[in-house]
């Protein structure tokens, strides 16, 4: 009805179809699926952080240190000091090529369940400044 109502000119219908297609593809892209899955596995606080800043914080299960996982697939994890300032960066990711949401979810699970083991394989890097707090 909406798309093919008699009063809609052909160009307008095509434009609407294009927009719907783009929207469908956008929402079903690997990146969008990864973000959707990540959001479902975050705590309410992490989800609010992610929606506002595109990062979220996790607490390491072994040391209780706080880490910030930024949107991305590499060099996106920072260990925070007590003031929330990045102290050091940790680079680790799944061995297969995954979309950002999936990488961030794997990093969250690893830090929350097996912190020492994952840091043992991670590489340190100096935190970039300025950094979003």
């Amino acid at each position, binding site marked *: 009805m909406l798309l093919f109502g008699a009063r809609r000119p052909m160009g307008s219908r095509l434009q609407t179809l294009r927009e719907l297609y783009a929207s469908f593809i956008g929402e079903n892209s690997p990146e969008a699926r*990864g973000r959707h899955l990540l959001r479902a596995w*975050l705590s309410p606080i992490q989800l609010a952080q992610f929606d506002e800043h595109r990062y979220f914080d996790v607490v390491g299960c072994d040391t209780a240190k706080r880490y910030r996982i930024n949107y991305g697939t590499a060099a996106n994890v920072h260990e925070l000091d007590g003031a929330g300032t990045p102290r050091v960066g940790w680079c*680790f990711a799944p061995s297969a090529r995954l979309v950002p949401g999936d990488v961030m979810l794997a990093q969250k699970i690893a830090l929350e369940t097996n912190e020492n083991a994952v840091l043992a394989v991670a590489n340190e890097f100096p935190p970039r400044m300025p950094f979003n707090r």
Partner: protein
Amino acid sequence: MPTQIVLDHSGDTRHEFDAADLEALAKAEQRFKKLTGKGFTAATRMGPGEVAVVRVFAPTAQETLFYPRLVGG
């Protein structure tokens, strides 16, 4: 229905199975062993945002997520 979610280049691939169907259950257990044998980590949700790694196949887990081995970048 219990679902196994495997992270991959497409975002994820989902495998649903009926826990009351012995054949489907065996297939799901076989998938669990195959993936963890290849180095995938299996995790389930315990509550909102709360996760746990699982080492053995849990037929009653509603969602089991698998991600590839983590390596230093």
